[in-house]
């Protein structure tokens, strides 16, 4: 399988701060790749760099073999990349419905089918369909954010800590949905919930101090207690 997304020695500055100092990884089509690392390691910044929100100043970001690191964000998104940001990015004054509408690229049967699927996955969204997004509970916002990324047919999804604030049973549902989607959609996942990460992840990369320091099949990490302790602080 070829690499669908490839980061090659990416460096990113935010203002004068040198945040990413050499990130390299490959994401294979149809796999779930998990980015791990401590708080402040640069995981979120990596996703934002891919999306062009914090453009890379050095290195390459390639999507389907094409350089995308100098494109504006909306063009990157149009290439079929969906994004669930860490802070959910809900449009607070828009209703749940309007939040979804802004995201929808088309309104055909396929989209409607996806919408059905999503509303079955997160019934809460249906209940509060006409409610301003800002008034949702923390977990409901997280659901809405995921839903917005699911509504379009994307080749690649970047998901930043989806399990954050979700009840265990919902986490389970999200995991299931990701597994279901894997066939058509490649996924890059940032996750602190190791249970979740290790269950659905195919490979992992560990980021530390703005650099990718370890990588491999998920099974490797599951087996290697030392590595877990060293980079993730867990046994």
């Amino acid at each position, binding site marked *: 399988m070829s690499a669908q997304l490839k980061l090659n020695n990416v460096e990113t500055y*935010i203002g004068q*701060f040198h945040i990413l100092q050499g990130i390299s990884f490959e994401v294979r089509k149809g796999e779930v790749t998990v980015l791990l*690392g*401590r*708080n*402040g*390691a640069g995981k*979120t910044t990596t996703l934002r760099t891919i999306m062009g929100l914090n453009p890379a100043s050095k290195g390459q970001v390639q999507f389907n073999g094409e350089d995308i690191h100098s494109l504006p964000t909306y063009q990157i998104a149009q290439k079929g990349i969906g994004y669930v940001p*860490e*802070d959910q990015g809900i449009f607070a004054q828009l209703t749940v419905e309007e939040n979804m509408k802004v995201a929808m690229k088309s309104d055909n049967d396929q989209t409607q089918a996806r919408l059905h699927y999503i509303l079955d996955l997160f019934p*809460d969204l249906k209940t509060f369909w006409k409610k301003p997004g800002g*008034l*949702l*509970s*923390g*977990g*409901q916002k*997280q*659901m809405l954010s995921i839903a917005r990324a699911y509504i379009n047919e994307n080749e690649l999804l970047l998901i930043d*800590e989806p399990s*954050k*604030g*979700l*009840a*265990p*049973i*919902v*986490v*389970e*549902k999200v995991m299931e949905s990701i597994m279901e989607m894997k066939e058509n959609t490649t996924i890059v996942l940032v996750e*602190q919930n*190791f*249970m979740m990460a290790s269950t659905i992840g195919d490979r992992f990369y560990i980021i530390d101090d703005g650099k990718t320091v370890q990588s491999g099949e998920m099974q490797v990490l599951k087996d290697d207690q030392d590595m877990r302790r060293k980079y*993730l*602080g*867990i046994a």
Partner: protein
Amino acid sequence: MGLIETTDLTIAFGGHTAVDRVSFSVDENHFKSIIGPNGAGKTTFFNLLSGQLTPTAGKILYRGEDITKLSPTLRTRKGIGRSFQITNVFPNLTVLENVRLAVQSQAGIRYQMLVSYKKYKQVEAKAVEWLELVLLDNKKETLACNLAHGEKRKLEIAMLLALNTDVLLLDEPTAGMSLEEVPAILEVIRKIKETGDRTILLIEHKMDLIMDLSDSIMVLFNGSLLADGTPEEIMKNETVQSAYLGGVGG
């Protein structure tokens, strides 16, 4: 009599009753966790306790006194402090300044207007101490808005701890915090409780973490109180198992 008691506490937004006739009581120096599905009304319940919202019906007693109508400000001063689920800091102030403001309030320095704030050395020292405790002292001079998500969560906790209130309401303090730091932070919270006669209410979705921390767990469901008991009792509850934990939590 409990330290905080509510009777039939209710709040409705339009047609939606987010907290529905909840009566509960928590004793001094008790550690109670609150769980429940998303949208069950946990955060709203905290908002009622801390005064961000006023209930449509019901009463809140704190140390026997009716505080239902008090402002958040006064409740904090009386000793009910809280942290927020959605990080809620002063974005363009430094991390240190964020915590310093909390210490300053705790020290009762409110209306001094002609002395430099730097004269209050002990306030700043105390703030640094708190930052060290939550492992954030290396980011003292960073503006709060430039923190990574997990770091903001720590700042949020530091600000609450710095208030040094008798009651701590913690709303998912560890959401998004890195694996290695969650236990450390919870340990800090536990220590605080033990050394300082604190009463703690904690909202969490990470069952494994709260099982051994909590003296009791209460479950909210669709706004109402479903169960309240020891961790073991709660784990045995069927509804909790099927509607909240699913297959994972156990």
